[in-house]
Protein backbone atom coordinates (compact mmCIF):
# COMPACT_ATOMS: atom_id res chain seq x y z
CA UNK A 1 0.00 0.00 0.00
CA UNK A 2 1.32 3.40 -0.94
CA UNK A 3 2.17 5.69 1.96
CA UNK A 4 2.47 9.39 1.21
CA UNK A 5 4.49 11.33 3.76
CA UNK A 6 3.30 14.92 3.54
CA UNK A 7 4.56 16.04 6.95
CA UNK A 8 5.65 19.66 6.90
CA UNK A 9 4.15 20.30 3.49
CA UNK A 10 1.56 23.02 3.17
CA UNK A 11 -1.53 23.19 1.02
CA UNK A 12 -1.74 22.34 -1.83
CA UNK A 13 1.22 20.00 -1.94
CA UNK A 14 -0.35 17.14 0.04
CA UNK A 15 -3.38 17.13 -2.27
CA UNK A 16 -1.16 17.27 -5.36
CA UNK A 17 0.85 14.30 -4.05
CA UNK A 18 -2.36 12.41 -3.32
CA UNK A 19 -3.80 13.24 -6.73
CA UNK A 20 -0.65 12.00 -8.47
CA UNK A 21 -0.54 8.83 -6.35
CA UNK A 22 -4.19 8.06 -7.01
CA UNK A 23 -3.56 7.95 -10.75
CA UNK A 24 -2.39 4.38 -10.20
CA UNK A 25 -5.97 3.58 -9.17
CA UNK A 26 -5.20 1.38 -6.19
CA UNK A 27 -7.73 0.43 -3.54
CA UNK A 28 -5.81 1.80 -0.56
CA UNK A 29 -3.62 4.76 0.19
CA UNK A 30 -2.23 6.24 3.38
CA UNK A 31 -1.31 9.89 3.76
CA UNK A 32 0.40 11.50 6.70
CA UNK A 33 0.11 15.23 7.34
CA UNK A 34 0.60 17.54 10.28
CA UNK A 35 -1.68 20.44 9.45
CA UNK A 36 -5.45 20.65 9.67
CA UNK A 37 -5.96 22.44 6.35
CA UNK A 38 -4.24 19.64 4.46
CA UNK A 39 -6.16 17.04 6.46
CA UNK A 40 -9.38 18.70 5.31
CA UNK A 41 -8.26 19.16 1.67
CA UNK A 42 -7.04 15.62 1.24
CA UNK A 43 -10.15 14.19 2.90
CA UNK A 44 -12.35 16.16 0.50
CA UNK A 45 -10.31 15.07 -2.51
CA UNK A 46 -10.29 11.43 -1.45
CA UNK A 47 -14.06 11.42 -0.94
CA UNK A 48 -14.54 13.10 -4.32
CA UNK A 49 -12.50 10.31 -5.90
CA UNK A 50 -14.81 7.76 -4.33
CA UNK A 51 -12.67 6.64 -1.42
CA UNK A 52 -13.79 6.18 2.18
CA UNK A 53 -11.54 8.25 4.39
CA UNK A 54 -10.69 7.50 7.99
CA UNK A 55 -8.53 9.86 9.99
CA UNK A 56 -6.58 9.16 13.15
CA UNK A 57 -4.55 11.69 15.04
CA UNK A 58 -1.67 11.35 17.39
CA UNK A 59 0.17 14.34 18.83
CA UNK A 60 -0.66 16.63 15.95
CA UNK A 61 0.11 14.09 13.20
CA UNK A 62 -2.88 13.01 11.12
CA UNK A 63 -2.85 9.63 9.41
CA UNK A 64 -5.49 9.35 6.69
CA UNK A 65 -6.49 6.00 5.22
CA UNK A 66 -8.26 6.02 1.88
CA UNK A 67 -10.02 2.82 0.92
CA UNK A 68 -12.24 1.84 -1.98
Amino acid at each position, binding site marked *: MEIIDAK*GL*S*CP*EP*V*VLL*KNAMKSGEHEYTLITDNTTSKE*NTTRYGEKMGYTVSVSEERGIFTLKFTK
Partner: protein
Amino acid sequence: MKKPLKNKLDIIIAGGIIGVIASLLSLLGNPANMGFCIACFIRDTAGGLGLHQAAAVQYIRPEIIGIVIGSFAAALIRKEFSPRGGSAPLTRFILGFFVMVGGLMFLGCPFRMIVRLAGGDLNALLGLVGFAAGIGVGAFFLNRGFSLKRTYKQPLLEGASFSVIQVILFALLISAPAFIYFTEAGGGPGAKHAAVAISLAAGLIVGILAQRTRLCMVGGFRDMYLFKDFRLISGFIALFVCCLITNLILTAVTGTSFFKLSFADQPVAHTDGLWNALGMFLLGFASILLGGCPLRQLVLSGEGNSDSAMAILGMGIGAAFCHNFGLASSAKGPTANGQIAVIIGIVIVLIIACANSFNKKKD
Protein backbone atom coordinates in the same frame (compact mmCIF):
# COMPACT_ATOMS: atom_id res chain seq x y z
CA MET B 1 -17.26 30.93 21.08
CA LYS B 2 -18.07 29.83 17.58
CA LYS B 3 -18.61 26.14 16.90
CA PRO B 4 -16.49 24.49 14.20
CA LEU B 5 -17.98 25.17 10.75
CA LYS B 6 -18.39 22.42 8.14
CA ASN B 7 -18.95 22.06 4.37
CA LYS B 8 -19.52 24.83 1.84
CA LEU B 9 -22.21 26.58 3.88
CA ASP B 10 -19.71 27.89 6.40
CA ILE B 11 -17.49 29.50 3.79
CA ILE B 12 -20.45 30.97 1.92
CA ILE B 13 -21.75 32.58 5.11
CA ALA B 14 -18.27 33.79 6.00
CA GLY B 15 -17.71 35.20 2.51
CA GLY B 16 -21.07 36.93 2.67
CA ILE B 17 -20.34 38.56 6.02
CA ILE B 18 -16.93 39.69 4.81
CA GLY B 19 -18.47 41.14 1.65
CA VAL B 20 -20.94 43.18 3.69
CA ILE B 21 -18.16 44.41 5.98
CA ALA B 22 -16.02 45.38 2.99
CA SER B 23 -18.83 47.51 1.59
CA LEU B 24 -19.66 49.10 4.95
CA LEU B 25 -16.04 50.08 5.59
CA SER B 26 -16.15 52.38 2.57
CA LEU B 27 -19.30 53.96 3.99
CA LEU B 28 -17.57 54.40 7.33
CA GLY B 29 -14.50 56.15 5.99
CA ASN B 30 -12.23 53.81 3.99
CA PRO B 31 -11.51 54.81 0.40
CA ALA B 32 -14.19 53.99 -2.15
CA ASN B 33 -14.06 50.44 -3.50
CA MET B 34 -11.39 49.77 -0.90
CA GLY B 35 -13.13 48.47 2.19
CA PHE B 36 -10.33 45.94 2.20
CA CYS B 37 -7.15 45.78 0.20
CA ILE B 38 -4.35 43.74 1.68
CA ALA B 39 -1.75 45.08 -0.77
CA CYS B 40 -2.78 48.73 -0.39
CA PHE B 41 -3.09 48.47 3.38
CA ILE B 42 0.34 46.88 3.82
CA ARG B 43 1.66 49.67 1.57
CA ASP B 44 -0.12 52.29 3.72
CA THR B 45 1.35 50.73 6.87
CA ALA B 46 4.83 50.81 5.32
CA GLY B 47 4.21 54.49 4.68
CA GLY B 48 3.04 55.07 8.22
CA LEU B 49 6.34 53.67 9.40
CA GLY B 50 8.24 55.98 7.05
CA LEU B 51 9.54 53.18 4.84
CA HIS B 52 8.37 55.27 1.90
CA GLN B 53 7.62 58.94 1.61
CA ALA B 54 4.52 58.94 -0.58
CA ALA B 55 2.53 61.37 1.53
CA ALA B 56 -0.80 60.33 0.05
CA VAL B 57 -0.60 56.80 1.39
CA GLN B 58 0.76 56.79 4.92
CA TYR B 59 -1.38 55.20 7.63
CA ILE B 60 -0.94 52.16 9.83
CA ARG B 61 -4.08 50.24 8.86
CA PRO B 62 -5.80 48.52 11.80
CA GLU B 63 -7.49 46.09 9.40
CA ILE B 64 -4.16 44.31 8.81
CA ILE B 65 -3.47 44.23 12.53
CA GLY B 66 -6.96 42.86 13.18
CA ILE B 67 -6.69 40.10 10.58
CA VAL B 68 -3.44 38.75 12.05
CA ILE B 69 -4.60 38.99 15.68
CA GLY B 70 -8.05 37.57 14.81
CA SER B 71 -6.42 34.62 13.10
CA PHE B 72 -4.03 34.18 16.03
CA ALA B 73 -6.92 34.11 18.50
CA ALA B 74 -9.05 31.78 16.38
CA ALA B 75 -6.10 29.41 15.91
CA LEU B 76 -5.33 29.38 19.64
CA ILE B 77 -8.94 28.58 20.51
CA ARG B 78 -9.10 25.67 18.05
CA LYS B 79 -5.62 24.47 19.00
CA GLU B 80 -4.44 25.15 15.45
CA PHE B 81 -1.71 27.58 16.48
CA SER B 82 1.42 25.85 15.26
CA PRO B 83 4.78 27.66 15.13
CA ARG B 84 6.44 26.46 11.95
CA GLY B 85 8.75 27.73 9.28
CA GLY B 86 11.95 27.09 7.44
CA SER B 87 10.53 26.45 3.97
CA ALA B 88 12.73 28.68 1.78
CA PRO B 89 12.00 31.89 3.74
CA LEU B 90 14.14 34.17 1.56
CA THR B 91 12.53 32.86 -1.62
CA ARG B 92 9.15 33.59 -0.02
CA PHE B 93 10.32 37.09 0.90
CA ILE B 94 11.22 37.65 -2.76
CA LEU B 95 7.91 36.23 -3.95
CA GLY B 96 6.11 38.53 -1.51
CA PHE B 97 8.06 41.46 -2.90
CA PHE B 98 6.77 40.71 -6.39
CA VAL B 99 3.23 40.07 -5.16
CA MET B 100 3.29 43.71 -4.11
CA VAL B 101 4.89 44.92 -7.37
CA GLY B 102 2.08 43.24 -9.27
CA GLY B 103 -0.58 44.43 -6.86
CA LEU B 104 0.52 48.06 -7.00
CA MET B 105 0.51 47.88 -10.81
CA PHE B 106 -3.17 46.88 -10.68
CA LEU B 107 -3.85 48.93 -7.51
CA GLY B 108 -5.25 46.05 -5.56
CA CYS B 109 -4.91 42.55 -4.19
CA PRO B 110 -7.32 39.72 -5.07
CA PHE B 111 -9.59 40.78 -2.20
CA ARG B 112 -9.79 44.34 -3.55
CA MET B 113 -10.22 42.99 -7.06
CA ILE B 114 -13.51 41.41 -5.90
CA VAL B 115 -14.47 44.55 -3.98
CA ARG B 116 -13.79 46.70 -7.07
CA LEU B 117 -15.89 44.38 -9.21
CA ALA B 118 -18.69 44.67 -6.66
CA GLY B 119 -18.40 48.45 -7.01
CA GLY B 120 -18.87 48.24 -10.78
CA ASP B 121 -15.22 48.80 -11.66
CA LEU B 122 -14.93 46.91 -14.95
CA ASN B 123 -11.14 47.41 -15.00
CA ALA B 124 -11.02 44.71 -12.35
CA LEU B 125 -12.28 42.25 -14.99
CA LEU B 126 -8.96 42.60 -16.78
CA GLY B 127 -7.25 42.05 -13.47
CA LEU B 128 -9.34 38.91 -12.98
CA VAL B 129 -8.28 37.56 -16.38
CA GLY B 130 -4.62 38.18 -15.60
CA PHE B 131 -5.02 36.69 -12.13
CA ALA B 132 -6.66 33.54 -13.45
CA ALA B 133 -3.86 33.17 -16.00
CA GLY B 134 -1.19 33.62 -13.34
CA ILE B 135 -2.80 30.93 -11.21
CA GLY B 136 -2.98 28.69 -14.28
CA VAL B 137 0.73 29.03 -14.96
CA GLY B 138 1.50 28.36 -11.29
CA ALA B 139 -0.74 25.31 -11.34
CA PHE B 140 1.29 24.00 -14.29
CA PHE B 141 4.38 24.10 -12.08
CA LEU B 142 2.54 22.57 -9.12
CA ASN B 143 1.64 19.64 -11.35
CA ARG B 144 5.30 19.29 -12.20
CA GLY B 145 6.41 19.00 -8.63
CA PHE B 146 6.93 22.63 -7.59
CA SER B 147 7.82 22.67 -3.93
CA LEU B 148 9.67 25.00 -1.60
CA LYS B 149 10.22 21.97 0.61
CA ARG B 150 8.81 21.30 4.03
CA THR B 151 8.36 23.44 7.08
CA TYR B 152 9.66 22.45 10.49
CA LYS B 153 8.37 23.02 13.97
CA GLN B 154 9.73 26.27 15.36
CA PRO B 155 10.04 27.71 18.86
CA LEU B 156 6.96 29.40 20.27
CA LEU B 157 8.38 32.91 19.89
CA GLU B 158 9.07 32.33 16.19
CA GLY B 159 5.41 31.64 15.66
CA ALA B 160 4.02 34.32 17.95
CA SER B 161 6.34 37.21 17.15
CA PHE B 162 4.45 38.45 14.12
CA SER B 163 1.29 38.78 16.18
CA VAL B 164 3.26 40.62 18.87
CA ILE B 165 4.59 42.96 16.17
CA GLN B 166 0.98 43.75 15.22
CA VAL B 167 0.23 44.76 18.81
CA ILE B 168 3.26 47.06 18.74
CA LEU B 169 2.06 48.57 15.45
CA PHE B 170 -1.33 49.16 17.04
CA ALA B 171 0.30 50.91 19.98
CA LEU B 172 2.22 53.13 17.54
CA LEU B 173 -0.99 53.95 15.67
CA ILE B 174 -2.85 54.89 18.84
CA SER B 175 -0.08 56.83 20.51
CA ALA B 176 0.94 58.57 17.25
CA PRO B 177 4.50 59.55 18.14
CA ALA B 178 6.19 62.12 15.92
CA PHE B 179 8.11 59.55 13.90
CA ILE B 180 4.93 57.85 12.66
CA TYR B 181 3.43 59.31 9.50
CA PHE B 182 -0.22 60.08 8.84
CA THR B 183 -1.49 61.35 5.51
CA GLU B 184 -3.00 64.78 6.08
CA ALA B 185 -6.75 65.22 5.75
CA GLY B 186 -7.61 65.54 2.08
CA GLY B 187 -4.13 64.37 1.13
CA GLY B 188 -5.05 61.07 -0.47
CA PRO B 189 -6.30 57.54 0.24
CA GLY B 190 -4.15 57.35 3.36
CA ALA B 191 -6.35 60.00 4.95
CA LYS B 192 -9.48 58.03 4.22
CA HIS B 193 -10.05 55.56 6.98
CA ALA B 194 -12.79 54.38 9.25
CA ALA B 195 -12.42 54.95 12.97
CA VAL B 196 -9.64 52.84 14.46
CA ALA B 197 -11.99 50.74 16.58
CA ILE B 198 -14.21 49.97 13.58
CA SER B 199 -11.28 49.06 11.33
CA LEU B 200 -9.77 46.88 14.03
CA ALA B 201 -13.05 45.11 14.69
CA ALA B 202 -13.56 44.53 10.97
CA GLY B 203 -10.07 43.07 10.68
CA LEU B 204 -10.61 40.82 13.71
CA ILE B 205 -13.86 39.46 12.28
CA VAL B 206 -12.30 38.82 8.87
CA GLY B 207 -9.25 37.22 10.48
CA ILE B 208 -11.37 34.87 12.56
CA LEU B 209 -13.68 33.92 9.67
CA ALA B 210 -10.81 33.50 7.19
CA GLN B 211 -8.84 31.34 9.64
CA ARG B 212 -11.76 29.04 10.35
CA THR B 213 -12.86 28.62 6.73
CA ARG B 214 -9.38 28.73 5.08
CA LEU B 215 -10.67 31.46 2.74
CA CYS B 216 -8.13 32.05 -0.03
CA MET B 217 -8.66 33.61 -3.44
CA VAL B 218 -5.65 31.89 -4.97
CA GLY B 219 -6.79 28.58 -3.55
CA GLY B 220 -10.22 29.27 -4.99
CA PHE B 221 -8.97 29.30 -8.59
CA ARG B 222 -6.25 26.73 -7.99
CA ASP B 223 -8.58 24.14 -6.50
CA MET B 224 -10.97 24.60 -9.43
CA TYR B 225 -8.19 23.93 -11.96
CA LEU B 226 -6.33 21.17 -10.17
CA PHE B 227 -9.01 19.30 -8.24
CA LYS B 228 -12.37 20.50 -9.61
CA ASP B 229 -13.09 21.62 -6.03
CA PHE B 230 -15.38 24.64 -5.75
CA ARG B 231 -15.40 25.16 -1.98
CA LEU B 232 -12.99 28.10 -1.75
CA ILE B 233 -14.28 29.92 -4.83
CA SER B 234 -17.83 29.70 -3.49
CA GLY B 235 -16.70 31.81 -0.54
CA PHE B 236 -15.51 34.53 -2.88
CA ILE B 237 -18.62 34.38 -5.02
CA ALA B 238 -20.61 34.94 -1.82
CA LEU B 239 -18.27 37.81 -0.92
CA PHE B 240 -18.83 39.44 -4.32
CA VAL B 241 -22.60 39.03 -4.27
CA CYS B 242 -23.04 40.37 -0.74
CA CYS B 243 -20.64 43.26 -1.30
CA LEU B 244 -22.50 44.15 -4.50
CA ILE B 245 -25.93 43.98 -2.84
CA THR B 246 -24.74 46.09 0.09
CA ASN B 247 -23.27 48.64 -2.33
CA LEU B 248 -26.59 48.88 -4.18
CA ILE B 249 -28.56 49.25 -0.95
CA LEU B 250 -26.17 51.92 0.36
CA THR B 251 -26.43 53.80 -2.93
CA ALA B 252 -30.21 53.77 -2.69
CA VAL B 253 -30.34 54.67 0.99
CA THR B 254 -27.59 57.28 1.31
CA GLY B 255 -27.77 59.02 -2.05
CA THR B 256 -24.01 58.58 -2.46
CA SER B 257 -22.88 56.25 -5.22
CA PHE B 258 -21.30 53.03 -4.00
CA PHE B 259 -21.78 51.36 -7.36
CA LYS B 260 -20.93 52.71 -10.78
CA LEU B 261 -20.60 50.41 -13.76
CA SER B 262 -17.79 51.76 -15.91
CA PHE B 263 -14.16 51.61 -16.92
CA ALA B 264 -13.47 55.32 -16.58
CA ASP B 265 -13.37 57.44 -13.44
CA GLN B 266 -13.26 54.60 -10.96
CA PRO B 267 -11.83 55.39 -7.51
CA VAL B 268 -8.12 54.54 -7.01
CA ALA B 269 -7.99 52.70 -10.31
CA HIS B 270 -6.67 53.13 -13.84
CA THR B 271 -7.96 51.98 -17.19
CA ASP B 272 -4.83 50.46 -18.73
CA GLY B 273 -6.23 46.99 -19.34
CA LEU B 274 -3.02 45.31 -20.44
CA TRP B 275 -1.12 46.39 -17.33
CA ASN B 276 -4.04 45.67 -15.03
CA ALA B 277 -3.92 42.13 -16.40
CA LEU B 278 -0.12 41.82 -16.26
CA GLY B 279 0.03 43.18 -12.72
CA MET B 280 -2.48 40.64 -11.48
CA PHE B 281 -0.80 37.92 -13.55
CA LEU B 282 2.40 38.56 -11.61
CA LEU B 283 0.52 38.71 -8.30
CA GLY B 284 -1.38 35.51 -9.03
CA PHE B 285 1.67 33.60 -10.23
CA ALA B 286 3.78 34.62 -7.22
CA SER B 287 0.90 33.98 -4.81
CA ILE B 288 0.19 30.44 -5.95
CA LEU B 289 3.88 29.61 -5.49
CA LEU B 290 3.57 31.05 -1.97
CA GLY B 291 0.64 28.75 -1.34
CA GLY B 292 -1.96 31.46 -0.87
CA CYS B 293 -3.17 34.98 -1.56
CA PRO B 294 -2.05 37.96 0.59
CA LEU B 295 -5.07 37.57 2.88
CA ARG B 296 -4.17 33.93 3.41
CA GLN B 297 -0.54 34.87 4.17
CA LEU B 298 -1.78 37.21 6.93
CA VAL B 299 -4.01 34.46 8.35
CA LEU B 300 -1.21 31.87 8.23
CA SER B 301 1.17 34.27 9.97
CA GLY B 302 -1.36 34.58 12.79
CA GLU B 303 -1.46 30.77 12.98
CA GLY B 304 2.28 30.77 13.64
CA ASN B 305 3.71 30.30 10.15
CA SER B 306 6.85 32.41 10.03
CA ASP B 307 7.34 31.70 6.31
CA SER B 308 4.11 33.59 5.67
CA ALA B 309 5.40 36.36 7.92
CA MET B 310 8.48 36.53 5.66
CA ALA B 311 6.23 36.80 2.61
CA ILE B 312 4.36 39.70 4.23
CA LEU B 313 7.63 41.41 5.13
CA GLY B 314 8.61 40.99 1.48
CA MET B 315 5.35 42.66 0.54
CA GLY B 316 6.08 45.53 2.92
CA ILE B 317 9.56 46.08 1.51
CA GLY B 318 8.13 45.70 -1.99
CA ALA B 319 5.67 48.49 -1.22
CA ALA B 320 8.49 50.71 0.01
CA PHE B 321 10.50 50.04 -3.18
CA CYS B 322 7.45 50.69 -5.34
CA HIS B 323 6.89 54.13 -3.93
CA ASN B 324 10.55 55.04 -3.55
CA PHE B 325 11.36 54.14 -7.13
CA GLY B 326 8.16 55.13 -8.87
CA LEU B 327 6.92 51.62 -9.59
CA ALA B 328 3.39 52.05 -8.30
CA SER B 329 0.55 53.02 -10.60
CA SER B 330 -1.85 55.87 -10.01
CA ALA B 331 -5.23 56.84 -11.41
CA LYS B 332 -3.33 58.19 -14.42
CA GLY B 333 -2.03 54.73 -15.18
CA PRO B 334 1.13 52.67 -14.83
CA THR B 335 4.59 54.20 -14.75
CA ALA B 336 7.36 53.12 -17.10
CA ASN B 337 9.43 51.96 -14.12
CA GLY B 338 6.48 49.94 -12.89
CA GLN B 339 6.07 48.24 -16.24
CA ILE B 340 9.75 47.26 -16.29
CA ALA B 341 9.46 46.01 -12.71
CA VAL B 342 6.45 43.82 -13.55
CA ILE B 343 8.26 42.24 -16.51
CA ILE B 344 11.38 41.66 -14.40
CA GLY B 345 9.12 40.21 -11.71
CA ILE B 346 7.47 37.77 -14.09
CA VAL B 347 10.90 36.59 -15.25
CA ILE B 348 12.21 36.18 -11.70
CA VAL B 349 9.11 34.33 -10.53
CA LEU B 350 9.42 32.06 -13.59
CA ILE B 351 13.03 31.31 -12.61
CA ILE B 352 11.92 30.53 -9.03
CA ALA B 353 9.18 28.26 -10.39
CA CYS B 354 11.52 26.37 -12.73
CA ALA B 355 14.30 26.05 -10.18
CA ASN B 356 11.96 24.42 -7.68
CA SER B 357 10.06 22.12 -10.03
CA PHE B 358 10.88 19.10 -12.17
CA ASN B 359 12.67 17.50 -9.23
CA LYS B 360 10.76 14.27 -9.26
CA LYS B 361 10.21 12.04 -12.26
CA LYS B 362 6.60 11.25 -12.97
CA ASP B 363 5.85 7.53 -12.85
